């Protein structure tokens, strides 16, 4: 296996903005709404390219989501882009009633997810959105691992009929994939093979899973690393196969462990193939100000913590 990294660090928002413009060129029915954060999200690039199809609705996210729903009801593919705290929790019932229930073609793309927002602090560090959105019937939930995958999510979301929620980071993240890699909603991607334990991550934690796998390999433990970019629907066959073949699973997410991908993987494995598990993520607490890496370190979202969790789970499983 190749060693993890060093990787190029890139902005998911930059890929998002470019992908939207390219999509807009191909697809005249795409429209974009924003809420005074479009420059930050890079969705403003779409607004500059297609001013008649871009609407900045001010600091009024409930209105933004319902306007997107109305546009979609009239046949548009409506992208709503803002920070994840506003595009999920702040607008939850609007999304529920106006987007998920009527199964409208609204694509909510949220940056600034998780602790890695950094100095803005806990109010802006959305660690609960994956669970909130997974709980909505008819909703698809995507968590791209890097910039190129964020671009792929834009195309996949537009191509799929119905609501999509996609969350990504403010911080630059390691580029693990390329625009030439396949991406299908509902599929998990094996980033590294191994049969001793499975490390299932999403978002920026996928790179940390790969680093943990390197460290485990130095102790003779071969970890399978799975990128769970599709948090709903989850690729049950790939996850169940990993559980059967390794007998031990660690999940890693920049999200609360209360109702994130770890809980989702645990509940599906409990029915399918129960194995010892450990959950790396935010432990039911709010974050605080600090630099992204400091926060990920302080709250235990590191390769070292994944490695420790792997050893714990392997002990539970028995050798």
């Amino acid at each position, binding site marked *: 296996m190749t060693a993890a990294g060093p990787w190029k660090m890139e902005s998911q928002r930059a890929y998002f903005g470019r992908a939207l413009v390219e999509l807009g060129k191909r697809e005249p029915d795409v429209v974009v709404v924003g809420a005074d954060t479009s420059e930050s999200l890079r969705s403003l690039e779409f607004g500059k390219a297609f001013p008649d199809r871009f*609407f900045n609705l001010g600091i009024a996210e409930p209105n933004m989501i319902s*306007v997107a729903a109305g546009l979609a009801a009239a*046949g*548009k593919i409506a992208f709503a882009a803002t920070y994840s705290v506003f595009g999920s929790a702040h607008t939850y019932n609007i999304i529920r*009633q106006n987007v998920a229930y*009527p199964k409208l073609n609204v694509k909510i793309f949220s940056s600034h997810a998780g602790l890695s927002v950094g100095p803005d602090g806990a109010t802006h560090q959305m660690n609960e959105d994956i669970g909130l959105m997974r709980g909505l019937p008819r909703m698809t939930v995507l968590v791209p691992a890097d910039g190129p995958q964020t671009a792929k999510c834009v195309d996949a979301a537009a191509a799929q009929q119905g609501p999509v929620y996609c969350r990504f980071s403010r911080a630059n993240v390691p580029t693990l994939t390329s625009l030439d890699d396949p991406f299908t909603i509902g599929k998990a991607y094996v980033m590294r093979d191994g049969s001793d334990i499975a490390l299932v991550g999403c978002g920026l934690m996928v790179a940390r899973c790969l680093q943990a796998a390197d460290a485990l390999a130095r102790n003779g433990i071969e970890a399978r690393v799975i990128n769970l970019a599709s948090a709903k629907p989850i690729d049950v066959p790939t996850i169940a196969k990993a559980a059967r073949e390794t007998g031990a699973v660690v999940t890693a997410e920049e999200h609360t462990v209360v109702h994130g991908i770890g809980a989702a993987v645990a509940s599906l494995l409990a029915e399918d193939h129960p194995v010892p598990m450990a959950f790396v993520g935010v432990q039911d607490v709010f974050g605080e100000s600090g630099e992204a890496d400091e926060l990920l370190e302080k709250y235990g979202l590191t390769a070292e913590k994944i490695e420790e969790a792997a050893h714990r789970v392997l002990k539970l499983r028995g050798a």
Partner: protein
Amino acid sequence: MGDYSDELIRNLRRKAVLLRKHIIRMTHNVQSGHPGGSMSSTEIVTALYFHVLRVDPKNPGWANRDRFVMSKGHACPVWYAALAERGFFPVDELLTFRKINSRLQGHPELGTTPGVENPAGAEGQGLSFSVGLALAARVDHEPWHVYCLMGDGEQDVGQTWEAAMAAAKYGLDNLTAIIDRNGIQQEGRTEDIMPLEPLAEKWEAFNWHVLTIDGHDFRQVLAAFEEAQRTKGRPTAIIARTVKGKGISFMENKIKYHGAATTQEEFRQALAELDALEATI
């Protein structure tokens, strides 16, 4: 005011009686639902579906139809009654309202009920949804018009005013909002729960063209819609002064009938009153 023939007005008044009978039967049949706010909206909905809206019951998804958005989703009995009488689905189906396995949900579901254009239930989302529809028509340079019916209780909701600002920002003259100003919400008089007045001045301050009418007078209702269509450069808000429970003596202006069905005795009396009214038209 437009020149409307006596025959047109008589026909609309007959339709309104018919819709009110359906509202009473539907809510009585299931012993739930919201008759009061359905009755206050009846002339507005009747005027739209039987004179104003360009819709095709045989082709509910016709791309260039006008859109009617019912933001006050609890008043869906009057909407379902109008849709059925207009031919979107069989009139017999009205008595499945709020029952298991029905296409007529307690609050409107988009995609299930032919002719229903928006999901509604939680208040205050419909005007925003209408702004999205109106923007789509503008993007496509299509001539269809969006009509959004709100309750006055919905004027409490912050999102209503977010939408009001957005509609004015984009000068959406293809959007008309109607506020059913019956003065009563679930727990009491609007002015006791959360004072709304001066309401017309509020909408004017948000850069809307504002009309205040008697929402039960068909000539005023039709004239207001004509003026809204003529008004260019900004959206129009029609404040329709109405009576909650209008048309049934014991329901009129009673807070209770926001969300209460009739007893057996009240049911008989209500239908008898509507029959008597019909005989005078």
